């Protein structure tokens, strides 16, 4: 059977561990590890665990229920067909989903849940059916579950045509066709773009080709890295202390391997959480025996004649004997296939409105093209209508469901994507969770718990308003902060709280926008006004769509 846990919802109550201890376990006090493909013999226990979850975060295949809250119930009653939607499209339309990962799968499922009966094609560049990525740097790396044991549960039958192992290479908006790497074309009436992000490779191609140099993004990466680690390397080098890098370091340490983490910034997780909380994460790493070097970069990697990685040269002048180097350098959005399509797609993702409808390069919203998941950038009213591209598990699900819903609903029945962003990471036995967008903050304050015990909540403020919160093993308090963020409550919070000792706010210590940090979890518009990178190309009315040049228009479009 297949199980997945929405760990953004999980608050660490541990009810699943009590009821199915062979399937679920705690790593530390709050972080959950689990087997995504438990044996059928565990079925009753897993059902007990799923029913008992206080936040209903467990999704079990074939349980014939939908995940989440009341909104899904409403969705069923609020059937598209009854809301003035295009009945012909609902019955016999053609939807193509490009991207066969979490967002693509959940989007396809939602389409069916919403009553779409037409043809559905799901295109994916990897040869595998949709699988869950977060376990690759945790349970899979630890050897608790195999890389091919990460398939996502199917929450309903989607009756789709799967085109797996074939990348989409182009989009013809005029003819409404997706072009595939094998030369075929797939026509659509409506399109969902969910092509996500790929790992940023080690920049030197020859060095990147050495055996032992690897990223962690795909199932194949996960399987290979596990093999490398299981072979007992002399030392593992982690390049980049973002979430993926820190998690990999944590697992390697738990396996007893010597680990060096090299981070260009001044602390781990600095891009997402700032240096105040980043320094706490640094303490965690060092306590667990990680050789953590901040403000340092890897200058080159050496191999032996057989092409195996042997050494790494660091900017602090040191040379390390390493057999494995994990390049955890963040991601690159998969937008190249959209070049020339006329959509507003660029390095920050594909821009869309709050209803996941794609914009074209002129800032016009499209009718039939939707975007979801890591590759989507949508304006968020809670954060100054900044276009946020969020690489978060829960965001992928939420956007996919909203895109699918809006794809089959007439204007008045559409949903906006307004959810407060949430993400999690587990490392060194600590469950780190975040709500809001801490990386937009200027100040931070520890409001509950204590830093010494590594159990605390830190609230983040921007210009006197609370904008985010991060917990270390304190997840069950975060919903309260989520409400404060939604209300744009004053920062710092000026009221007594249980477990609080009234610490003062300090600068949060986010790097300046021009400083690259590995593995950012949020990308905002990102431009300083002085930094005008895109040229405005006036377009003749009869012209075919221009190449991607006017991505960020400096002036409004004038008629004629």
């Amino acid at each position, binding site marked *: 059977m297949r199980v997945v846990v929405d760990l953004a919802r999980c608050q660490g*109550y*541990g*009810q699943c*561990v*009590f*009821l*199915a*201890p062979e399937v679920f*376990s*705690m*790593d*530390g*006090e709050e972080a959950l590890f689990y087997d995504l493909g438990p044996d059928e013999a565990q079925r*009753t*226990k897993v*059902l*007990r665990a799923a*029913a*008992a979850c*206080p*936040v*209903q975060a467990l999704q079990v295949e074939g349980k014939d*229920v939908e995940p989440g*809250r*009341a909104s899904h*119930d409403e969705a069923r009653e609020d059937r598209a067909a009854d809301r003035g939607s295009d009945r012909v499209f609902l019955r016999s339309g053609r939807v193509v989903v490009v991207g066969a990962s979490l967002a693509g799968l959940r989007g396809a499922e939602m389409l069916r849940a919403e009553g779409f009966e037409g043809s559905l094609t799901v295109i994916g560049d990897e040869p595998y059916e949709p699988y869950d990525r977060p376990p690759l740097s945790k349970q899979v790396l630890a050897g608790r579950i195999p890389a091919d044991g990460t398939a996502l549960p199917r929450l309903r039958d989607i009756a789709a045509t799967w085109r797996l192992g074939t990348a989409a290479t182009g989009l013809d908006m005029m003819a409404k066709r997706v072009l595939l790497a094998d030369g075929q074309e797939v026509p659509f009436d409506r399109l969902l773009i969910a092509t996500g992000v790929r790992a940023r490779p080690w920049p030197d191609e020859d060095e990147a080709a050495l055996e032992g140099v690897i990223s962690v993004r795909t199932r194949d990466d996960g399987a290979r890295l596990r093999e490398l680690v299981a072979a007992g390397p002399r030392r593992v080098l982690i390049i980049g202390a973002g979430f993926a890098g820190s998690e990999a370091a944590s697992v390697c340490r738990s396996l007893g391997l010597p680990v060096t983490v090299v981070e260009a910034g001044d602390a781990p997780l600095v891009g997402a959480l700032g240096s105040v909380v980043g320094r706490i994460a640094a303490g965690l790493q060092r306590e667990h025996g990680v050789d953590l070097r901040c403000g340092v970069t890897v200058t080159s990697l050496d191999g032996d004649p057989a092409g195996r990685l042997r050494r790494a040269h660091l900017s602090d002048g040191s040379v390390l004997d390493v057999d494995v180097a994990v390049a955890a350098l963040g991601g690159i959005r998969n937008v190249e296939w959209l070049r020339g399509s006329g959509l507003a797609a660029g390095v920050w993702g594909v821009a869309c409105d709050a209803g996941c409808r794609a914009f074209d390069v002129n800032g016009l919203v499209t009718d039939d093209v939707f975007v979801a998941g890591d590759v989507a950038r949508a304006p968020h009213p809670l954060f100054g209508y900044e276009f946020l591209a969020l690489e978060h598990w829960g965001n992928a699900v939420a956007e996919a469901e909203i895109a699918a819903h809006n794809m089959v609903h007439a204007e008045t029945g559409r949903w906006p994507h307004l959810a407060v962003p949430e993400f999690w990471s587990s490392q060194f036995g600590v469950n780190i969770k975040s709500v809001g967008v801490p990386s937009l903050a200027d100040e931070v304050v520890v*409001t*509950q*718990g*204590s830093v010494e*015990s590594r*159990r605390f909540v830190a609230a983040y403020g921007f210009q006197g308003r609370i904008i985010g919160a991060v917990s270390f093993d304190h997840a*069950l*308090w975060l*919903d*309260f902060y989520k*409400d404060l963020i939604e209300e744009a409550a004053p920062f710092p919070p000026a*009221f*007594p*709280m*249980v*477990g*609080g000792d009234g610490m003062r706010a300090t600068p949060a210590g986010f790097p300046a926008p021009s400083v690259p940090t590995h593995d950012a979890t949020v990308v905002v518009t990102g431009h300083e006004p002085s930094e005008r990178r895109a040229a405005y190309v006036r377009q003749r009315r009869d012209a075919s769509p221009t190449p991607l040049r006017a991505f960020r228009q400096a002036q409004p479009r004038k008629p004629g």
Partner: protein
Amino acid sequence: MAEAGVFEQILDHSHRADPYPLYAELRRTPVARQPDGSYVVSTYRHVAALLHDPRLSSDLRSEEERAAPGQRPSMLRLDPPDHDRVRRLTMRHFGPPHTPARVDGMYDELAETVSRLVDDFAGREQVDVVDDFAYPFPVAVICKLLGVPREDEPRFSRWVDVLVGATDPNGELKDTNPAVVQAIIDFRGYLAGLVATHRKEPGEDLLSALATDAGPEGRLGDDELLGQAMLLLIAGHETTVNLIAHGVLTLLRHPDVLQRLREDPELSIRLVEELLRYEPSVQMIPWRRALADIELGGTTIPSGSVVTLVLAAGDRDPDAFRDPDRFDPDRQSEHLSFGGGPHFCFGAPLARLETQLALTEFARRVENPRLVADPPPYRPSPVLRGPLHLPVRLDGVAPAARRVARPAPEMVRQRTPAEEDVHARG
């Protein structure tokens, strides 16, 4: 004030059998000020929010009481960080992360115990589901788990009844009542004796583990340990008794569901969740206090106010559950019945497993069960609500499923008439 009147009626025993229409009325004022200055919160979203609100304290002691030596409250009445430490130290021996398999490992024994209780129905035309089934089962389980001699039940049940009675905001038994004070002293004295015995000769039980813990964070202070032991013994069975009794009652009121459960034991899993929502054993949490002004639903709860969270009203809120007054075991819900936040029910997994097993065994083996009285008589407390008795007629008992060979548990004792009297007066 109309809404205060509603809450008073809820507390009144005459409405104990079916308080739900009054809860519906109560929800019309989601945050209702009472004549005594306290606030009653009844809608799902507001109750759920307050369960996770760090501006709400569970520690109602005055500064002086807190500074005074002796009698430390259980984790139920403590705030973080004390609460978290006490809970962590207690959890070390009961559940994850250190003892994840304890409750799951009790499964066979639970099944055995409940099966023998149904065996004892054989040859009887009528049983009291409370006294003969819903009560002895969790009592036997919690005694075994804690290491409390089962034969001491008549002793501690008196104290339990007095203390449960003290949760009744309407009753005469307040915390300061001499009977309550004496019950606490006697109860703690009894438990102190047990702890001393277990420390000398530790067994596999929870009290032994807590009394001899040598973990990295140290162990609970003796005074803390007694507070915990008292809480675990009371909460470890009292609420489960009510849940199982309400489960049987609800099944007999919904014969279609009873029939489905007979055919599909797995239904018990979702059914118990729905039962928790539909008939919560803990109807309300009356001991929270605002540490700051809390603006909620258009009302400001002033700092210092005592706040009652009516879980049972939230669980029937039509804004959170479609057709909330319908018992629907296919429903998937995030009910409030085990609370939420740091005080989430400590023993929830055990209560779930016990109730799933009890209802499945009852449905499968008891032939043609019929209610003798509907509604049954109810116990006094509006906080810990449950039937006093649940007489059920039956035509016979089907044989037990094949059982793992195991020594028979001790005979389950009936309450004596005198105990019954204490219980009824509660």
